[in-house]
């Protein structure tokens, strides 16, 4: 790829980060298809998966357009498919949180709640982005995310304030996943560049509002936020947990084995 000027490159990376996080969680949720605890919830989690997949396609299409414009070549070199199917693990910029295994229903719900609450705050700010396309995607996506927050928060309360079994499971999920929430509010270089340009959102400023949402729901669910947990990070810079490689193996299999295969 010929050199791209720095600010465009940062915008591309920022857009890819938004795309990757939504794609990977869509893929994780899709693993539930046909395996949900009851039919209605199987349908719910896969509906959420589909919303996230749609959001990621919008981001990938935009990133591909930016790449193609900036390289000024006659042939197009990037597409939503090439960005999703032909990038390697180290090139993915998704949060560590979204690549974590589904575990049990409690862990899946908690991961969704943490992420949806974050997305809701993010998109409420991103809709005022000076970048028209990112703003349009944010406004569109926010309507969907509002439903995801409502659905997952109700499940947290149901599980936390439910039976001993459901409570134990959600407590275990909190112990497991809390360490991946710090990264949501630690801006990477490209995020800092994006928000100083008025394009992106300063995610470090979302932390208090996010904690307030979590606290409010946890209180109703009789749960608490764990203390003294070391926060893992690196996903946004391409340093992932072992899980991402396995997800990509599944996700990218067809295009890797049959390059250019079409339906």
């Amino acid at each position: 790829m010929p050199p791209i000027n720095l600010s465009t490159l940062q915008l591309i990376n920022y857009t890819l980060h938004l795309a990757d996080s939504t794609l990977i969680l869509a893929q994780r949720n899709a693993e539930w298809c046909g395996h949900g605890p009851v039919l209605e919830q199987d349908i719910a989690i896969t509906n959420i998966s589909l919303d996230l997949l749609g959001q990621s396609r919008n981001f990938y299409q935009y990133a591909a357009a930016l790449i193609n414009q900036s390289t000024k070549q006659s042939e197009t070199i990037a597409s939503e498919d090439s960005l999703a199917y032909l990038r390697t693990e180290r090139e993915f910029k998704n949060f560590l949180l979204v690549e974590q295994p589904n575990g049990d229903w409690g862990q899946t719900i908690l991961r969704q709640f943490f992420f949806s609450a974050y997305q809701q705050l993010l998109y409420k700010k991103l809709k005022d982005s000076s970048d028209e396309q990112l703003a349009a995607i944010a406004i569109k996506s926010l309507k969907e995310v509002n439903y995801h927050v409502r659905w997952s928060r109700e499940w947290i309360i149901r599980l936390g304030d439910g039976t001993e079994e459901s409570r134990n499971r959600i407590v275990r999920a909190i112990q497991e996943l809390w360490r991946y929430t710090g990264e949501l509010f630690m801006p990477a270089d490209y995020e800092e560049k994006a928000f100083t340009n008025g394009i992106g959102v300063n995610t470090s400023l979302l932390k208090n509002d996010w904690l307030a949402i979590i606290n409010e729901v946890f209180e109703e669910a009789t749960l608490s936020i764990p203390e003294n947990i070391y926060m893992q990070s690196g996903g946004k810079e391409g340093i992932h947990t072992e899980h991402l490689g396995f997800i990509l193996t599944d996700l990218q299999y067809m295009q890797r084995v049959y390059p250019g295969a079409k339906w």
Partner: protein
Amino acid sequence: MLDIDKQVWKILEEVTDPEVPVLTILDLGIVRAVLINGKTIEVIITPTYSGCPAMDVISTAIRMKLLEHGFKYIKISSVLSPAWTTDWMSEEGKRKLLEYGIAPPKTRSDGLNIFNASPACPHCKSGNTTMISEFGSTACKSLYQCNDCKEPFDYFKCH
């Protein structure tokens, strides 16, 4: 020119939503514009939900219908902004939904409480209904049950 414009809009009335076949794409409010540039007809549509799988089918259906009516140069484009809302659904569309057994969106999308609008049962018209699942058979619907006639039904969510 004006006649072609009218003719194209008339043809679009024949294209229905593959998932809710009683609704035309005009009832749904997803056709944003028709542009006529020489021989080329451009139809601009907007998705209902980001991941709506019906969009590709709808694009193809629009193309096929226009081809059937003798148009050769067709372009279908998609825009995200302004974001689609159920407020754009026609009154005729809402009536057809209800007749089909799907409760239409109850309030405006900017209403104070779009989530807690308990829809009336499309079968027995009772207002005494319970939500079974936030998410239904397609992205745009949730699943309800009537507490009086006990029938389950789909509700087209406010969006």
